[in-house]
């Protein structure tokens, strides 16, 4: 059973300089109790994807096609605002990237944690007790006395753990983690990933983990999707993609990961070229203008080529494994 199934989702923004297709024909699913990683460079549509799932697209954005099926019976693309609000924070919780700015600076942590429980019908004291228990779970020392404190009195790592505690307090079915460790230093990053793993097991929720950091995805996620310019170019289990990436973009992305370099290089590898202008998508394969394997065939939209198991790559040349040049 999939907690979340995104089927052929397209999202468009109406800008002054024309219509911008931020997501095009995106499909993937997040099975129960599993973690799915979404990887891609800045501007690939990761944030748009989150906002579309949460129903928080900007006023000029709209879901132009497709569906977002949550818990098998609700299409988030068509749910009304009130029903959507009832899901947010209760069934779908989110941890955002910026721990410094994610909490309200003028309200105490206790107040903010209490407010999240506004639908629970608990007394103030019970809500606080629940907040304390949750803060203890994320290893905030002396949680009782820290409820009265304000966000700026906590360190960055602590704030992110508080944000995690807030997100998981209502025991959601789906946790969306939007680059939750990007703003943290390396040691904290590892600790935060471990914490997320433990809590996911304990609460039994699914995680949609957005990151541009491949190592974190490898550490945490069972499955992953690779996004480029608003499209899913490759998806499969984390193992399949890390060991046998087939889409040229994924292959380049893996080659660019500094953690995977085995020897000193004078310059870190990059992917030549830039993301295409999403108002004028290239015809055919979206990666074709930057791809060294591109040929005449690539001017046609590539099919989702099955590699084996759940592994899919949207490429005409998906039969060429990593390390083999065209």
């Amino acid at each position, binding site marked *: 059973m999939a907690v979340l199934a995104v089927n052929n989702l397209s999202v468009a923004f109406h800008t002054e300089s024309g219509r911008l297709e931020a997501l095009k024909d995106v499909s993937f699913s997040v099975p129960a109790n599993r973690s799915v990683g979404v990887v891609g460079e800045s501007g690939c549509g990761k944030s748009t994807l989150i906002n579309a799932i949460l129903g928080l697209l900007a006023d000029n954005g709209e879901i132009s096609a497709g569906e977002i099926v949550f818990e098998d019976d609700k299409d988030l693309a068509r749910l009304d605002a009130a029903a959507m609000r009832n899901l947010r924070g209760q069934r779908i*919780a989110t941890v955002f990237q910026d721990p410094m700015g994610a*909490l309200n*600076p003028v*309200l105490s942590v206790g107040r903010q944690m209490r407010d*999240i429980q*506004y639908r629970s019908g608990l007394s103030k004291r019970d809500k606080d007790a629940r907040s304390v228990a949750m803060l203890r779970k994320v290893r905030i020392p002396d949680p009782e006395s820290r409820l009265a404190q304000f966000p700026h009195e906590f360190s960055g790592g602590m704030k992110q753990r508080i944000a995690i505690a807030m997100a998981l307090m209502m025991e959601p079915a789906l946790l969306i983690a939007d680059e939750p460790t990007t703003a943290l230093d390396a040691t904290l990053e590892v600790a935060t990933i471990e914490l997320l793993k433990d809590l996911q097991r304990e609460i039994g929720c699914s995680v949609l983990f957005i990151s541009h950091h491949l190592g974190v995805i490898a550490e945490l996620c069972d499955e992953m999707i690779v996004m480029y310019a608003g499209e899913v170019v490759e998806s499969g289990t984390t193992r399949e993609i890390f060991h046998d990436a087939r889409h040229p973009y994924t292959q380049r992305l893996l080659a660019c990961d500094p953690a995977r370099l085995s020897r000193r290089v004078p310059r870190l590898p990059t992917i030549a070229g830039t993301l295409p202008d999403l108002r004028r998508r290239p015809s055919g394969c979206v990666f074709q203008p930057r791809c060294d394997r591109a040929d005449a065939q690539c001017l046609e939209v590539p099919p989702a080529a099955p590699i084996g198991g759940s592994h899919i790559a949207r490429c005409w040349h998906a039969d060429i494994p990593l390390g083999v040049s065209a």
Partner: protein
Amino acid sequence: MIRYAIKRLWLGAIIISFALMMMFAMVYLIPGDPASVALGPRATPEMKEALRERMGLDQPVWKQFANFYGSALHGDLGTEVLSNRPVLNVVMEQLPFTLALIVGGITWSVALGIPLGCIAAVRRGGFVDQVIGVLSVAMIAVPSFVVAIYSLLVFAVALQWLPAIGAGDPGNIASQLQHLILPSLAVGLGWIGYISRMVRASMLETLEASHIRTARAFGLPEHRIIYTYALRIAVLPTITLLGVGIGHMLSSSVFAEIVFARPGIGKLVYEAISVRNYPIVSGAVLVTTVFFVLVNVAADILVGLLDPRVRSSFN
């Protein structure tokens, strides 16, 4: 927090002593011999000398300054010439009327300015936002004496809903409040506009913040997001602005007090200037300076109370 308050008060004391210095310098630098002016053209040199001695004008500047300072710190602002009463008493008698006027002006501006600013921000770009925008600018643009005269003509003379002149019967709160409505509107109207513009701008900025996105992602009701999570932050600059605004309200209270024939500092100063009663003028200026400084200290402390970040930056 107490340390923060003390620090603000200490800064306030420095500003007040600076104001005292300016006042002394102004009186000292005005050309002409005060003794000759006071005694008239037929005074003998001996009489002038005697008066100068009595006024302490024969002493060196620094000593005159120290005397002036010392007596000001003791609350002795000199004696008024006409009634021979201490200047401080005369000014303090009028202060409550002006205070009431300014509190009324603040009430108008806050009670209307904050909601208007919020509504405009929430309806950003819409018709309501535009109407509030035009209204706000209009309110800022109209001088307070025009508001005073026309509100008097409309509500007191033509419609006869409210009393036209005076401050109401002493001891009768209801009558005093009735007499306060129009003058305080004249004083506060422009600030309704300022505050609504200010709240709109800082509200729009706050609504973009990532913690508001967090609040939305947690499914908090929209009214709570706007009126608690965002407004608590968006009003902070408004409080500081109001501290400055009280200075402007003090100057517009001069017009309001004259038009509505209300007692108060503004009217006192106006009348003192017209008869060249300078001790009263400088006394009133000093008292309003102290008042202005204290209000700004209070505004800073209030911001500290509402913004934990400010509070702890001083701990």
